[in-house]
Each structure stands twice: as structure tokens, then as C-alpha cells.
């Protein structure tokens, strides 16, 4: 299962990354020249976190179908604890995936110096990304009537989230309209945070992005908790 989830990111990094590197050898991000493969790798890792988050919503469907949702709620637990358990679960899965991508991509990362502050950025990017996207997919799963609709909505939603962000390219050189939309996309914030931690490249708006991501993640988590009051048992 984990091996299958690693196929896509490894293709992105080792196939697409190296192929594009031939065209775009280096690029300027936050005033520093960065190799394209190194630029792409953190973006792909946060995208993994976003994809892993879809499991949180799917878990609710499975728990409801197998009546485990009601069974948990008649135990000494509350709905917010149930949501948190799902978010933590996909967070751990996302962190494991990210760690494995790091390990496999380690030959590319030789020579990088990750400071304690960098480690805080990396952890923050992965934890907040999981909290945001996990809560978001859980909230969506409450409002849709079937698993099929849930998957369809996520497919439609994820494509603009991926391309209107700093996952594949630096926003500094992108057209203004794309920059504007991308700057309200939490995936951009996570990718920029992860790059700050790994590559020590800092986009000018990074402090604001981090604050917005913290606020957004908790707002979406609270919204998901409130939405869960609607779930019938």
C-alpha cells in the first residue's frame, strides 16, 4: 500500500524533475538559485500530504458503513476526538510517506544543511498541511451523500489546488492572476514552509503564509467538528 503511494511522487521527482531540469537548470526563488529537482521535491511531498488527507474522509464513510462511527460515539469519546483521531492517523501516514520520499531522494539532498529552525519549518509544514486537508476532506464527507460524490468532488478540487500553487513553479515569475489565486491556496503555504526548512529559501511572504496556515488549519478543524454534529448515527 505504502509502496504504491510512493510510485507517483518518485516519478514526479526522478522522471519529470530530471526531464524538466534539462530545460530549466536553475531558478531564482527568494533571491537564491535553486536546482529544479530540489525545488520540485518539497512541492511533491506536500502534495502527498494532501492526497493522504483524502483517506480521512474515506475513513468516515467506512466507519459509517460498518457502524463503527456510532459504536465509537457511544463510548467515552466526543466527536472532536473522533475527528482528531482521523487527522492524526492521516498525519502519521503522510509523515511516513514524506519520510520515505526523503530517504529515497536523499542522494539529491546531499550537502543540504537542515538547521533546528529548518526542522521546525519541515514539521510545521507537514503537520499543518495534514490538519488542514484532513479536516477539509472530513467536513466535505459530512455534506455529500455518497462515496462516489465525495471522490468526484476531491478530484475536481485537487487539480486547481495543485496547479494554482507553488508546487511546480515559483510564483514570483508567474502571471499576476495566477499569483493572486495561488497566494490563498494553503498548499502554497505548506510547500513554501517545507522549502524554507529543507533548502533555506524564503519567499518574501513566508511569515504571513505561516500565520494564515495556522489560522486556516484550526478554523477548518473547528468547522469540521461543527459539521460533524450533522452526521447521523
Amino acid at each position: 500500500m505504502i509502496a504504491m503511494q510512493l510510485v507517483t511522487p518518485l516519478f514526479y521527482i526522478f522522471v519529470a524533475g530530471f526531464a524538466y531540469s534539462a530545460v530549466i537548470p536553475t531558478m531564482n526563488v527568494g533571491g537564491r538559485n535553486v536546482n529544479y529537482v530540489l525545488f520540485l521535491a518539497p512541492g511533491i511531498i506536500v502534495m502527498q500530504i494532501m492526497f493522504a488527507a483524502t483517506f480521512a474522509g474515506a475513513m468516515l464513510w467506512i466507519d459509517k458503513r460498518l457502524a463503527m462511527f456510532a459504536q465509537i460515539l457511544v463510548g467515552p469519546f466526543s466527536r472532536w476526538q473522533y475527528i482528531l483521531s482521523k487527522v492524526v492517523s492521516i498525519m502519521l501516514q503522510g509523515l511516513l510517506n514524506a519520510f520515505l520520499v526523503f530517504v529515497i531522494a536523499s542522494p539529491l539532498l546531499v550537502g543540504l544543511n537542515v538547521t533546528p529552525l529548518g526542522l521546525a519549518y519541515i514539521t510545521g509544514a507537514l503537520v499543518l498541511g495534514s490538519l488542514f486537508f484532513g479536516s477539509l476532506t472530513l467536513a466535505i464527507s459530512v455534506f455529500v451523500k455518497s462515496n462516489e460524490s465525495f471522490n468526484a468532488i476531491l478530484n475536481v478540487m485537487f487539480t486547481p489546488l495543485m496547479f494554482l500553487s507553488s508546487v511546480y513553479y515559483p510564483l514570483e515569475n508567474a502571471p499576476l492572476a495566477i499569483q493572486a489565486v495561488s497566494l490563498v491556496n494553503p498548499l502554497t503555504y505548506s510547500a513554501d514552509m517545507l522549502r524554507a526548512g529543507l533548502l533555506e529559501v524564503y519567499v518574501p511572504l513566508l511569515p504571513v503564509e505561516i500565520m494564515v496556515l495556522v489560522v486556516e488549519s484550526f478554523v477548518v478543524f473547528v468547522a469540521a467538528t461543527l459539521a460533524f454534529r450533522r452526521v447521523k448515527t
Partner: protein
Amino acid sequence: MTEYCVETTELTKDYGKVVAVDHVSFKVLRGEVFGFLGPNGAGKTTTIKMLTTLLKPTDGKASVFGFDVGSEGAKIRPRIGVVQQEMSYEYSLGVEENLDMYGFLWNVPKKERRERIELLLGKFGLKDVRKTNPQELSMGQRRRLQVAREFMHDCELMFLDEPTTGLDPQARRITLDFVREKVEGGMTVFFTTHIMEEAEYICDRIAVIDHGKILALDTIGNLKRKFGGVSVIHLRVTDGKDGLNQKLEKLRNVERIVYPKQEDEPLKVYTKDADTVLSQIIDMASSSGLHVEELRIKEPSLDDVFIQMVNQKGDGQK
């Protein structure tokens, strides 16, 4: 400490025009097995869902251990156990792991979990499938797992919502005996079923519910006395069945006749004057050349009491 585990006053749940539970009031004594008996769709599960804090009542009051089910659920849930009517299990874990995970969620220490797992696997006949995923089990095995799982933790009050559905008679008896054993240890049980023999076997008191309303609440003995007074004559004939129904309809002092749905069932004649009806049937048999295979008066079972109660209510509504 109050002597009641559960108290409801005019408890009601409606879904718009559909009233699932209609102003029911009852009390469950500590240490008893309280049966909630009724046909499918009577309101049993909705009542349990309100008492276990899953559903909020539309009207009326309900408390468990003195705590309001609508606003003090967090004080109730750690003290109860619930076996839902719907089959539930964790799909990615084996039988043993399902039990272990559930005990872990309830903060049962590891050593105690190991001991309980062994006891429950043995008690519920699941030792041979301890490593099997629940999705590969038979319906009966899955039900046994579900019931066993709830005994991974201690509780003061256990809600069992038709827990024996899908079980064979032997597993059913083992389950009921295990529950009884726990009750002797001090546990209170709220037990719903539509199987009369089960209620008769395990329950101390019974509330009969139909269309969301409680029709009667008492011990089984008292219910039989109250709604009894009616005897049941079992009649089975082999030859001369032609026109039998018309002849039976002409009998005097008959409350109700229930015709068999299956070939091996007897025809049942409900009457308050068994002697007179019996002699009429004997006269009818000899004059019509009926070959009677079985003719006997039976004490009313809980089943008979229940049918009588539901019918009386139906007549009253007409």
C-alpha cells in the same frame, strides 16, 4: 444512589410527521434485565439511541444514572456498554485485534486485555478464527465478535439491541447465559428483542412497545395474568379440512382464531371459556368427520400475551 439506572418521562422522538417514540415513561431498576419487546419498527432502537446519547429527544425527559441524556452524555457514556443492532467491526483488523483495540480504546490495561480476550474467545467460540478478518466470518461469528467485544470493558449498564440476531440456538443460549452471569455480578441490562422466548428466558421485567407507545410494563408473570385469562386451544387436523374455517367462525365464546402460516404449525383458538369451546370443537369434529391429530389447551405464552395486547390496542383504535 438512586435505585434506578434509567428514568424516562414522556420521552418522544419524531421525524417530522413520523413519531418513532411517543411519550414513553418507564424506569429501569439497578441489577435487573429490563426487556423492551416489540415488533420491527416499534421504536426500540430509537429509544436505545436516545438513552445512549446518540439521538436527542424531541420532547420529554430521559436520564441515565441521574444524568440527562441530552446534555450530560459525557457523564453517561463511560459507564455504559452498547451492542448495536447493526453489525459493527474494524475491517482492517483480525478478530483478536478487534477485541484488543476495543479494550485499548476503553483504557483496559494490557495484561487484563490479554486475559479477557482469551476468556471471550473461548466463551463465544471464536478461538479457531482469532486471526481471521471479520469480513471472512459468517454472520453468526461476526455477531458473536460484536457481543464479545462489548465485554472487553466493564460497565454498569449494558444496552443490548437485538444481540442474538443471526445466532444459532446454541450460540443464542450461550450469549444469554453469559449476560445473565454478568447480571448476577451486578450489571444492569436493557435488552431489546422481538423474540418472545428470549425475553421470557432472560428478562425480569418487560415493557411491550408498539408504534412508539408502551402497551404494558410488568413482570412476565403479571403480564400473563393481566392479559391472560385467555387460553389457547391448539388444533391440528389431517382429514376433513374442507369448510373447516367457516365452521370454526361459528363457534361461540371465541376471542380470536389464528390460522397456521406453515404446515407444521397448529391452528390456534383464543378463548376465555376453554371448556365450552373445546366441547364445541369435539362435537364439530364428530359430526363433520374431522380427523383430529392434536387438540389441547395451552397456557398462554408471552407470544400469545403479546398478540393479545397488540390486537386489543388495534381494536381500541378502530
